[in-house]
């Protein structure tokens, strides 16, 4: 092999190995850092893991929002139409957070069946419902109905 050829080969091996190590690490890290989305029904059915960061979403139940008078602690319920769960959050809620609107929370599901949120996200604008929430609502409805026609 000519030296230039040999060098090219070494280079290719170097690049391929760096890239494959990288991809391996990426897949590994992805497994630890993805936040799965669960609906309130799934959570009450015990499908959601505890002590893992997950997301939950639904419509904020009307008249469920309460706030501690002395701190920034808040609690509210979200529903997918079939089940409600309580979410506790301490901090400032987004501008577009409101009852009877969609919200998604990121946090931990505890053994007391309460979701401790680290972050609460509301829809971005007036017309937008987070797709997960819209899906969850419609799925919850179809799940309660055995005769549901259709393809889902």
């Amino acid at each position: 092999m000519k030296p230039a050829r040999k060098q090219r080969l070494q280079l290719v091996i170097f690049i391929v190995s760096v890239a494959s190590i990288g991809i391996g690490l990426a897949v590994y890290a992805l497994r630890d850092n993805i936040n799965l989305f669960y609906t309130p029904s799934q959570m009450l059915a015990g499908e959601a893991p505890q002590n893992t960061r997950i997301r939950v979403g639904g419509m904020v139940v009307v008249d469920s929002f309460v706030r501690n008078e002395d701190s920034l602690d808040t609690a509210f319920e979200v529903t997918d139409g079939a089940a409600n769960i309580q979410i506790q959050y301490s901090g400032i809620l987004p501008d577009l957070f409101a009852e009877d609107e969609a919200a998604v929370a990121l946090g931990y599901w505890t053994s007391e069946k309460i979701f401790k949120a680290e972050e609460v996200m509301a829809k971005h604008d007036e017309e937008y419902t987070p797709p997960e929430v819209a899906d969850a609502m419609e799925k919850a409805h179809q799940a309660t109905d055995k005769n549901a026609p259709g393809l889902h």
Partner: protein
Amino acid sequence: MITELGVLPTAEFGHFALILALCLAIAQAIVPILGTLFNNRLWMASARPIACGQFVFVAASFICLVALFLGDDFSVRYVADNSNTNLPGHFKISAVWAAHEGSLLLWVLILSTWTLAVAMFSRTLPLDMVARVLAVLGLVAIGFYLFLLLTSNPFERLLPFFPGEGKDLNPLLQDVGLIIHPPILYMGYVGFSVAFAFAVAALMAGRMDAAWARWTRPWTNAAWAFLTVGIALGSWWAYYELGWGGWWFWDPVENASFMPWLAGTALIHSLAVAEKRGLFRSWTLLLAILSFSLSLLGTFLVRSGVLTSVHAFAADPARGIFILMFLAMVIGGSLLLFALRGPTIARTASFGWVSRETFLLGNNVLLIVAMAFILLGTLYPLVADMAGWGKISVGPPYFNLFFVPLVLVLGVFMAPGSTTRWKSHATDTLIRPALGIIAGSMLIAAGALFLLAYPFNLLVFVALTVSAWILLWSCRDWWQKSASSQGRLLGAKRLRGSYYGMLLAHIGVAVTIIGVALTSTYSDERDIRLSPGGQVSIAGYDFLFKGVVDIPGPNYMARTGRIDVSRSDVPRNNDLSRSDVSRSDVSRNNAPVTTLQPEKRYYTAGGQVMTEADIDGGFTKDIYVALGEPLAGDAWSLRIYVKPFVRWIWLGALMMAMGGVIAVLDKRYRRLTVRAAQADTSAALKEGVGVSFDAD
């Protein structure tokens, strides 16, 4: 009279101009190529005037849309959806590119601006090259015109029923930052189309030499500089407008702009090797294609909303299919061309393990690996959703986990790499100074932490060391290269613009790393409840909440809070968990710093609520206050942040962009393009190798 242009109403005139621009783009794509095939100089030369014509018509079309917005013509659906009579004038203009249709029109306007620039500043290029480059740009433009006209016409009328009042611009977008952010970002995105067109032209011609790399470099640098500023502006906008003080979220929209930036950065560096040494030629072509493909992907995926939900495609299948077809044709077509015509004869020039080539190769590998990670993290939720693995999101920890070490490694190699020679560099001349510089960098990092009185943090220490390392290497390199028998001043003047550009850009990277490290670690962020008269001490400042008053704005009602900030007399503490809330009405005897007036705006047309933070910006720290929500009584929840060195993040980015601009302005490109065009490849190569203190 703005609203009537001749016989046609403005909207129809704009639509018509757009159709004419499409026709010219078709001509621009076909005629010059035929010219190169039949060797007809007239046809080739027609590319320039056609490009000018295309620009004129798309500009006219754009002006029409602006006029429709200024004239509050709500019979046009796009205007009705994104404007309102009460919207201030400058926001009416920025509303033009607030949504899908208008931003696409801005895209083609910028594309034809770049095309025009290529047509004007390409006098030194061979005619057949100009013809091919402009033809490729014309092809890209055709895709956009068709997309606009067939699926996203901004001039569509709501007839016969149209609203008397518009829905108003999304309040998030009612901001000065958003007036300039999209155009500059698009200048960057679209600018890569020029590098792309050069690459495709080279493949078509089967000629890809040092001269090619030299023509491509300034265009790539310019696009990259715009993209850098665009990303920095986006980050800055998120920081002060979203109201929670974050400056980077790793969200899909940001990632979409960051990926072409990384690929573009790799391209800039591999172009240097292609020009100077004639190596990495296939790779450089591929990077040019990749940078532009990622720009296209970014534009489309962000605008079509597919990144937030797969269902966005379903909501409008016509657009979705068109986007896929267009991406497939542009990317697939250029990659097919690359496969068929790519340089197959490997250049046999070899280089030593310690040489500038090696360092630049390392740079490229690291940047592309970083890009691949981000691409994976961005597309993974989409793939998971499609494959039915559940709805997931990939959090910032994933991105940070890779990106932070990759950037630090990049920083470590970047500094000495830029001082090495081409071909081969004596290893000991690199290692000896390196030892001294490592020691110096660690001292500086430790000293900085001590002077700023921050608690020790290993990651911050490493980051500061890397930054100091970059700075010291840069200084040393400049000191050596500016040495001259006629005095240092003359020696410094003799160094090229592109060298100073590189130096500034690399220092910018160091500055950004410092900003990111310090602000991520030592920010003091508190969400707190305060009643009027209540006071809190954070990071050495007292914040006295004076209450909230109502002030009407042009199209909103504002509740404006007032917070007096003064320097605290209590000793500064870094215990982030402690807060010191006192309800004393009398402020302590402290030096006043500033008064902040954050707002909560209630927009009348759409009923939306917006948080406007107030920031006391400084070179070494920002004091950031935003109103949360009204609580019982007159109390409010407040976000109070003290963020050290946060401005350095954007300052560094601006320095990088400035570096890019300085490199573009280097006279060498203009002078040498003439020579390079005449000289053959090998001569150009020899010339490149012969220059020892080179810029890149």
